[in-house]
């Protein structure tokens, strides 16, 4: 039987602070890129916020500009980092991926979700697609 490799993403206090400051104080979803190293355990070293360009319902939708995505990939390459994943906030909702999140999810990426209740950070969790295109939770080490 093939052993299941635990999925772990490590986020240092300074990066967590950046994430929290980006998502608090608003009822709209915030989003951005997570860059770092992937040596089995994923270590986030850079948080790169980007604009939520969803044309409507930004309290429950986010969308990333394609050119911003390309810039994030180029920035990661220039820093010899890996684009590890995407973060976004769930204002008023738990840090659990929705059907919308699942429908739009890409392979490989860590999907870090921050729950924000009454505009204050509540919880952080991370998810990754498995082979069956279902989310599996990753262990977040803070």
């Amino acid at each position, binding site marked *: 039987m093939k052993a299941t490799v635990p999925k772990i993403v490590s986020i240092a206090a300074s990066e967590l602070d950046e994430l929290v400051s980006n998502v608090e104080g608003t009822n709209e979803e915030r989003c951005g890129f997570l860059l770092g190293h992937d040596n089995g355990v994923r270590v986030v070293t850079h948080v790169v916020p980007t604009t939520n360009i969803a044309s409507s319902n930004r309290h429950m939708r986010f969308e990333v500009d394609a050119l911003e995505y*390309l810039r994030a990939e180029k920035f990661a390459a220039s820093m010899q980092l890996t684009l590890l994943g995407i973060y976004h906030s769930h204002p008023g909702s738990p840090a659990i991926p929705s059907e919308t999140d699942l429908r739009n999810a890409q392979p490989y990426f860590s999907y870090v979700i921050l729950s924000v209740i009454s505009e204050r950070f509540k919880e952080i969790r991370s998810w990754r697609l498995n082979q069956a295109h279902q989310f599996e939770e990753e262990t977040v080490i803070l």
Partner: protein
Amino acid sequence: MATVFIPTPLRKFTNQTSKVEVSGNTVMEVIQTLTSTYPPLQRHLINADGKVPSFINIFVDDDDIRNLQQEQTAVKSNTIVSIVPAIAGGSK
């Protein structure tokens, strides 16, 4: 040959290569050549109608092919074709 930029989520299908030199005179020819070299990429880049799926953006240099001639956009030898997955989601 054009240079195709492979985004991080699709690199597991290209042996972790981020840039691939591919021949072709149009975006579709480039994608077809690319997917013949890396067959697992096909379901991500070509839909049942033989087109690029809506959740994939293709840029020729800095221009979205939706603003050019779609999959028939011309590709030259020094063109960079970037594959960009659509990133979106939401709590509901």
